């Protein structure tokens, strides 16, 4: 058995284990020591560069926000930001990987900056598709709330090691039309009771759709008896014991779901449309301000309310990262720094523009800049925020999805 086949058959989790072990111990001091070039030099080098920012483009507001950032960056730093619109960050990971396989060296790639988190980051980090750590070089990184929002340093329990710069916060949030659902469920147990009472009106996206997998994680975090195991890399031995309550819950829930749990909507967007049409009761999103945005856009009735489960829902951070072969590395760093600036973060948190919660620690900001963030809650916004439960380690995702698929499709 010394043929290459077993190596190829090595699953992602083995590699992740290895990567996790390596990065957990050796790397942080190494990147902390990297001599950081002066920021002014970087800004100078960035002037005139074009940064190809590969970012998911499924939302008009996000696209408009990136357009705004591009205008600001051109005016203040002479950096041209091009939004490369993608439908799935995994496509970009694959492209960078293919470029590496084709022997492209540093400075010869097509991607300068990528919007990323979770599995895609874990894959890029593991495969050495990211260059040197850079976040400590960014002046605005000092404002990031790394203690209050620990997920800004741990992306799905994988240490970021300075390879990606936080951009925004996300937390699993539900929304529904309060006229159709006056009393929203406050836990997955209450959700099950609701599904029993109103069969066929609840569903969740079919994993591996992102929101579907997140819903499963939420159930898992609420019901498992060994939450600590989820923060560690996946092991086949732990899997059955940790996940048994999850499958028991889903077995009980599915018969009461839309189409008897035999079919699932393709993604969160489809569910939102069905809630808007009145076919389903509850939609789920990762942006606590999503429903408010949709109300403004007249795609949801003004009576829509958002909420998070009282004891907390899954939360994480999304980031921007620079591939190893970026052509405009300096420019990409300037962009990442700009995206962390109070000005950019305040606009991003503004419901009129995007409504994505900030990664900054407002207490550390100068008063003038802090004022830009304060705003009264709008119709549809989450009124009472709940604690963010940390994501399970990224290596759990694939076994969870595989097992779900095996059982339910």
């Amino acid at each position: 058995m010394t043929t290459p086949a077993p190596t190829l058959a090595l699953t992602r989790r083995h590699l992740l284990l290895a990567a996790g072990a390596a990065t957990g111990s050796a790397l942080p001091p190494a990147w902390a020591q990297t001599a950081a070039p002066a920021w002014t030099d970087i800004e100078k080098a960035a002037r005139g560069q074009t940064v190809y920012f590969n970012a998911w483009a499924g939302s008009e507001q996000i696209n408009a926000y990136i357009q705004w950032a591009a205008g600001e960056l051109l005016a203040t730093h002479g950096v041209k930001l091009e939004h490369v619109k993608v439908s799935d960050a995994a496509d970009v990971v694959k492209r960078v990987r293919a470029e590496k396989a084709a022997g492209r060296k540093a400075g010869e790639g097509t991607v300068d900056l990528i919007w990323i988190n979770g599995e895609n980051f874990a894959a890029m980090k593991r495969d050495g598709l990211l260059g040197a750590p850079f976040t400590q070089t960014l002046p605005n990184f000092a404002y990031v709330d790394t203690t209050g929002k620990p997920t800004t340093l741990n992306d799905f329990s994988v240490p970021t090691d300075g390879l990606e710069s936080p951009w925004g916060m996300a937390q699993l949030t539900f929304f529904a039309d309060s006229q159709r659902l006056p009393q929203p469920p406050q836990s997955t147990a209450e959700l099950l009771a609701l599904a029993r009472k109103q069969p066929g009106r609840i569903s969740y996206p079919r994993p591996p759709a992102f929101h579907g997998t997140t819903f499963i994680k939420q159930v898992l975090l609420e019901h498992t008896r060994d939450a600590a195991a989820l923060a560690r890399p996946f092991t086949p031995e732990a899997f059955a014991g940790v996940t048994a309550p999850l499958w028991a819950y889903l077995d009980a829930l599915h018969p009461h779901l839309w189409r008897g749990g035999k079919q699932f909507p393709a993604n969160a967007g489809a569910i939102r449309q069905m809630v808007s049409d009145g076919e389903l009761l509850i939609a789920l999103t990762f942006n606590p301000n999503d429903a408010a945005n949709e109300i403004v856009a007249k795609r949801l009735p003004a009576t829509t309310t958002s909420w998070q489960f009282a004891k907390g829902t899954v939360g994480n951070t999304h980031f921007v990262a620079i591939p190893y072969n970026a052509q405009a590395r300096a420019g990409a760093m300037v962009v990442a720094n700009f995206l962390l600036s109070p000005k950019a973060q305040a606009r991003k948190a503004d419901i009129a523009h995007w409504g994505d919660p900030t990664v900054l620690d407002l207490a550390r900001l100068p008063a003038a800049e802090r004022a830009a963030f304060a705003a009264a809650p709008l119709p549809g916004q989450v009124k009472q925020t709940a604690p963010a439960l940390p994501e399970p380690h990224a290596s759990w995702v694939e076994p969870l999805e595989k097992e779900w698929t095996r059982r339910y499709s």
Partner: protein
Amino acid sequence: MNNLRLPAALALLLLAALPLLATAALALGALFDASAWHALWQDPQWQRALTYSIWTGLASTALAWWGAAALLAQGFVGQSLNRLLRGLPVMLATPHAAFAIGLAFLIAPSGWLLRAASPWLTGFEFPPPWPTTQDPWGLGLIAALTAKEIPFLLWTAATQLQRDDLRQRWRAEHALAQTLGYSPQRAYWRVVWPQLAPRLFWPLLAVLAYGLTVVDMALVIGPASPPTLAVLAWQWLQDADLAINAQGAAAGGVLAIVVLVSALGWRALQAVATHRARLGNGERGHEPKRSPTPSVRPEPFDELRTGSVEGLKRTRASIVRWLRQAQPERRGLGGTKTAFGFWLLAALYAAVLLTLAIGSIAGVWPFPALWPEALTTQAWHSVWSSRSTLSTTLVLALAAAVLALAWCVAWLELAPRHWDTAMRPLLNLPLVLPAVLWVVGLYRVALWLRLEGQWSGLLLAHTAMVLPYVLLALSPAYLGFDPRYQALSASLGHGRWRFLLRVKWPLLRRALSASAAVGFAVSVAQYLPTLYIGAGRFSSVTTEAVTLAAGAQRSLTSAYAGLQFLLPVLAFGIAAWVGRPRRFKVATT
């Protein structure tokens, strides 16, 4: 010119064959990965997904084939073919995904049809739990595919019927068969169809391959648990994990094998059917005793020879019928029936397009309201703000269509006929290989040539995708061009160029412009090659539409589908205008 002909043809051949072969080889090379096949085999969904793919692909192809054949029969018999073809460009130009989205909203439990009847008739205050979209039997997908492919088959059949040589011969044979006492319908099925059907082999294969491997339509309206194998392959190819990518490529390989096997099966079936049709066991007569090919040269006026009175009467009746039909101004009786079938299809398209139009401005629209509570133009604003992608799309599609057309004309003009026949399987590869697999090869070629993210690479990729369609559209008319024109032109002392520029190409104007329009439409619709070869740096109307549809907003998707629809409609409109027939006054004798 003649001594240069073969070298020039060879150069053309290499120009097209090398990239196509390289792409195919690299795409198929992705399949040599034992662990990927093992992973695929272990996957719990793939066998059921494959069953779905085969069922929806074969059923929709068979239905589209049958529907197109029936419409053609009525159109041919009723002499209303040209009228019938007038509405085709709009149908051809409707993007597949857009059609599926519109159809889904029509028939969904919360869709328009049920809203129209709720709650006054059905009593539904909420959408009923009916699996009318993403149904576990794949019926929605089959319906959408069938309705989308009938126009394509009709159109390719029409390109055959527009060949002067064939049309005249088939009309004559059809009339002759009627003088033998066959009804016009039966005469068509016995005489014309058996000759037409084999010529539609490649279009049919394209339809079949499309039906078996379609991703976007299946995502919208196809079964979901599990989805079709093409959707699974597509999801796997999108995964960040290399091993899962390889599994996706293997699934693409399975689909390629299914296409191949179905194609061979179809060939065999058709051979049997043609053989049986030639034996002519029609109700009217008996099996011919001497000639095995009576449809081409039947024994004329059999009835006259046997001298039966009944036979004579029937013969006379059919001659009268034939004479009536030969009168050009007369609209055949079959016209009303054609109208029915065709109107049904047209009504479906109209309903879908209307749904999209309303959907693009709909805001909140809860069931069972028949009309949206709020209207919003936000989606169209968004379309307007990304209008810069229009120019990329336009220039790319124009350039690819022109390049492909130039190549095809040169090839058909220069290549010996047996070269052409031999090369067709290779040239048609992009039609037949699953798109998910083909794009893997294209991308590897681009990486290898360092063309990724380059305009030139994108243009080449588009041209490669467009080429087979243009060739398919152009060759019937081009190869059927009456050779006597050339002899006549030569006898007047004109050279070849003069003949081409003054006689042949002007006469083929219609076919040339229509083929270019097809190429244009195909280029506009390219998603995967644009995304991969363009490295995301070039966004077209289609990549915009698909990425925005990832957010699954009905209004935005509908608006973009509208834009995606508009460009090909324009192209077909221009083609129709360029290729409009010149009107001559016909002297009636």
